[in-house]
């Protein structure tokens, strides 16, 4: 234990002595979060939709057919009760729901007006706006057609945004930023710190000493874990107080989930350190191999729904994607642990795989 403590102390010295990097590590998230605005969104195809048809008449059948024919929507479920809407959203099965009122046709024929409700998941505000716009357009189209005999029909749409009623972009980029920052600090900094020891030759001295290799790794990871937790806290404080994004779910759960992702990123860094020979190589591998795919494929900037299928598959192997899903669920939607079990298992799988791989590579290197 004494060995371990001396070693951890040393790691903290390294970090505090290099105050420029330290300022950078804490400064990046602060500037990013304060500068980053809304992300650009292109059209979104095949959004999962659920329809609650209270009317069951010719008008509602016609509209349903139009949704079914549209390339923008993919009907995943026909609902029977209003309660189901909420349930499907929480399961993450649908992006949008449309509710046809009872007696839709009657209202149109006799009252000349009807109201259709559209419910969208606004935790990704851009996507919610765009797809509820598409839905309104389909309904408007139908309205135009039935005006044929010069009688004015009005179908109004009532759009209800779930989870993020004010459609703030921050709701989308805060989780993404958390994923990116934690990945940056944990994976890249750990990889560089370990490779630096290799480059300086001090790793050899450590391997010859009685200190166990796993202790070296844990001691290196510890300061970065702490730093990352501090950064997570800063991002959360800034988003709550500067960007007015409330934390809907449990803060403790959010921090625990962040810790899980931190460990996953550290294992990635560890894996990189067993491959890279120089600090520059480690940094390049982290930037090209981690940062770029994470930014592009994690759904942080571009919606995953928009990507070609092959990139959608590729996005599954980006740990940050799963973490961002978790943060969206817990922080924005206020869901509990049971709704993110799948994501947790996937992250856990990444950790096991990466650590196993690193140990294998480490053994080979010693031979």
């Amino acid at each position, binding site marked *: 234990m004494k060995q371990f403590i*001396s070693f951890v102390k040393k790691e903290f010295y390294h970090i505090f002595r290099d105050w420029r990097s330290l300022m950078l590590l804490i400064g990046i998230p602060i500037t990013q979060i304060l500068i980053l605005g809304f992300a650009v969104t292109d059209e979104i195809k095949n959004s999962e939709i659920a329809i609650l048809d209270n009317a069951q008449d010719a008008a509602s059948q016609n509209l349903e057919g139009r949704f079914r024919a549209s390339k923008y929507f993919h009907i995943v479920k026909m609902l029977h009760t209003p309660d189901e809407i909420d349930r499907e959203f929480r399961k993450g099965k649908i992006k949008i729901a449309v509710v046809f009122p009872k007696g839709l046709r009657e209202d149109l024929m006799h009252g000349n007006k009807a109201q259709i409700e559209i419910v969208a998941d606004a935790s990704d505000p851009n996507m919610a706006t765009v797809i509820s716009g598409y839905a309104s357009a389909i309904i408007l189209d139908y309205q135009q057609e039935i005006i044929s005999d010069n009688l004015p029909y009005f179908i109004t749409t009532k759009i209800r945004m779930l989870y993020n009623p004010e459609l703030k972009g921050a709701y989308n980029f805060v989780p993404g930023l958390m994923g990116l920052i934690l990945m940056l600090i944990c994976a890249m900094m750990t990889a560089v710190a370990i490779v630096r020891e290799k480059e300086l030759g001090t790793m*050899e*001295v450590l391997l*010859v*000493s*009685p200190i166990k290799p796993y202790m070296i790794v844990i001691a290196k990871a510890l300061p970065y874990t702490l730093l990352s937790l501090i950064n997570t806290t800063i991002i959360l404080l800034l988003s709550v107080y500067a960007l007015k994004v409330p934390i809907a779910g449990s803060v403790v759960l959010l921090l625990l989930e962040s810790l899980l992702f931190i460990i996953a990123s550290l294992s990635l860094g560890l894996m990189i350190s067993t491959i890279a020979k120089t600090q520059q190589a480690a940094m390049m591998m982290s930037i090209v191999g981690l940062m770029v795919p994470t930014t592009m494929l994690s759904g942080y900037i571009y919606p995953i729904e928009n990507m070609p299928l092959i990139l959608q598959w590729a996005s599954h192997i980006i740990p940050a994607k799963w973490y961002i899903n978790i943060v969206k669920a817990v922080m924005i939607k206020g869901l509990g642990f049971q709704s993110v079990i799948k994501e947790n298992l996937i992250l856990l799988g990444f950790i096991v795989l990466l650590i196993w791989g690193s140990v294998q590579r480490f053994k080979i290197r010693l*031979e």
Partner: protein
Amino acid sequence: MPELVLEIDKLTKQFEDFVAADAVTFTVSKGEIFGFLGANGAGKTTVMRMLCGLSMPTSGSAKVAGFDIYNQTEEIKKHIGYMSQKFCLYEDLTVKENITLYGGIYGLSSAHIKEKMEKLLKELSLTEDANKLVRGLPLGWKQKLAFSIAIFHEPKIVFLDEPTGGVDPITRRQFWEMIYETSRKGITVFATTHYMDEAEYCNRVAIMVDGKIEAMDSPDGLKKTYNGKTMDEVFYVVARKAKRQAD
């Protein structure tokens, strides 16, 4: 019969179709200064890595400080010191912090570290610079500090991998005085080197050629056998037999 610190018998390391160390056999006694010479790629680093537990031998046997290199590596690690050509100090740590770190890694108590450190700083006349970053020290001082740290936990044997690379002759001379001092204290010194004048300082020298030990004796003995005036001439005669290209 003096106490043996290294007992090495037919130690062999094979990488696929390349034999890096071929049935290397020798012993080193307590307090001896043993020089390990050879051209680049002759296999000296391979042998040293095996003795330090950084690499597993393919066959043969070896005992370091009385412990078996196959199944007592943890014990070996506690009883050896190691210094590589890169000196292995942390430049962004102070002199004191470097000493404390290595003392801690070898499990010495804080009180013990403190006491030994005071003494060491005085010996190296580094007391005034104790709280300075190692980065600012002259190369020669770094080297002395690195060596002192390598023997801080009083190992039975210290391995020096080309310890004097890039250092001027006067500093090298002073460094060898430290090595003599160490050997007088009963710590065995095992050093690889390129410098033939350094080989003269050793009690005994082994010259490796193509993974085998070609010659092993005291510097004077070698000079007699190979009819050379200096170690340089001896090395030239012995190493000329090499068929393997340096890497």
